[in-house]
């Protein structure tokens, strides 16, 4: 299945000042996650013969359209994102047996998002990724260095904050089987879990946080501590820092002792 990266020519076309010293690392990191073709700075993002656009076809009988288009045997397809559907179109194209999808990291320049396509191919079982890899974290860092822009903390697949958990039901899921509330394990994309304590925490999360901070808390006092933590988070209108939580826990035990 041909997946083509056009991030570098797209960044150049958009006027970014690329740090060319990072290019070799970029090529290597993309190859490590199975990207089959990577456009160089001197190449156009989209070649003249590329099938380009099709932004709105998802609202119609797109499967039938794709089947007909495949008979034309296009070498490359670049779905446009004016309707916010480029990645969805590319996935649907792949599901219908298509190939040769052009994508860019995060979908910059109105393309499908490369990293989301890659994880979709993994989840669908068509092209598994290694269970544990730092490749996506490296790709993010190189991209940020190339483009001079930090990605949002909750960017799909690449965001640093995607695996921060707080709500009782989801942290309970971590404790029983993390796959219950995660689409893929953080290791897959070089991320890590972190635990926030706040208004939606449950007792399991409190026990985990106490363990993380290196102290034990009596089981019979956890319900009181939970009430205190929720009250404090509501007053502050945000989740608690570790030191704020530790202070509450110490107060709950009647001081430092």
């Amino acid at each position, binding site marked *: 299945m041909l997946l083509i990266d056009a991030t570098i020519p797209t960044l150049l076309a958009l006027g970014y000042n690329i740090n060319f010293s990072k290019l070799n690392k970029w090529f290597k990191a993309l190859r490590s996650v199975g990207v089959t073709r990577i456009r160089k700075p001197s190449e156009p993002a989209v070649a003249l013969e590329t099938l380009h656009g099709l932004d709105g076809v998802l609202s119609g009988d797109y499967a039938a359209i794709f089947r007909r288009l495949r008979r034309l045997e296009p070498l490359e397809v670049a779905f446009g994102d004016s309707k916010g559907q480029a*990645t969805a179109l590319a996935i649907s194209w792949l599901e219908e047996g298509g190939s040769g999808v052009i994508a860019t990291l995060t979908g910059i320049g109105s393309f499908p998002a490369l990293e989301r396509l890659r994880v979709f191919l993994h989840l669908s079982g068509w092209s598994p990724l290694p269970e544990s890899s730092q490749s996506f974290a490296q790709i993010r860092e190189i991209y940020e260095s190339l483009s001079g822009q930090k990605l949002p903390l909750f960017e799909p697949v690449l965001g640093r904050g995607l695996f921060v958990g707080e709500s009782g039901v989801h942290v309970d899921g971590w404790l029983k089987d993390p796959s219950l509330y995660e*689409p893929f394990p953080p290791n897959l994309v070089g991320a890590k*879990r972190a635990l926030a304590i706040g208004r939606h925490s449950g007792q399991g999360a409190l026990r985990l946080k106490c363990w993380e901070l290196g102290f034990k808390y009596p089981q019979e006092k956890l319900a009181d501590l939970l009430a205190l933590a929720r009250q404090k988070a509501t007053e502050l209108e945000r989740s608690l820092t570790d030191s704020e939580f530790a202070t509450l826990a110490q107060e709950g035990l009647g001081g430092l002792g």
Partner: protein
Amino acid sequence: MRPRIKLVDATLRDGEQAPGLAFSTKTRVFLGALLSRAGIYQLEVGCPVMGPAEIESIKAIKQSTGSTRVSAWNRVRIDDVLASLKSGVDVAHLCAPIRESHLVKKLGQSWATLSQELKACLDLVRGAGLLASVGLEDVSRASSDELVRAADLLDSLNVKLVRLSDTVGVLTPSRTKSLVSYFKGRGFTVEFHGHNDLGLAYANSLIAALSGAELLDVTVAGVGERAGNCSLAKLIALGASWLDFDVSLESALELEAETEALFNRRAYILDLLNAKTAVETFLKNDARSV
């Protein structure tokens, strides 16, 4: 004819569950009133079983939202429903895990037990004169047999409104279409709840609506766990070519601009990520003890 879509805003439930966020009752009332004025069909505002403070907060939100329908989220548990009845909401939403792995690993429960408890919860909700909706949790990863089993159960319990929840955001447009079509074909009114883990929440919501879903779930600015949910304004902007909404794009954009600061959790999350975390070690070695 263009489908007319009812929007269900879950900012004060699913949205606020995003790590880092916590709203006071004053802020929740403010947000609820803004969303109600913008024309949202239904507000899902919290989980009453969290305790008396949450129940009082939900009551206050309900008072500020006029004729907008207000719902509360519940597990399929009598305690949850009893708390919802105290909170003055119009709708009790019951979230039912339908995958065998959820039932076994999360709840240690059989399908027969879940079915009995769902019936008991529905009897309680209906007996109190509230509307009921049932959500199928993680419907995206359910097998065909699990879907048929769930539809049969809801049918037998006379449930009309079903929420299809893409709990971990792995649905694709083709799978969304087949899921919605199946439940529509079985005679249910369908609500779709997307998550944005693969960046597909908007496309999936559009496909769901074009396949017959009458209600779509959103949050302000798309706030939610992991990569979040569908943003109210972005869904309206992207769907306007094909769908009609009761909320105008102008109102949605204005609302998201006015409330932007409330959802800024960047500094908190960065601090947390920079701290030494031992969650992975714990999950590997000590989770069983918890």
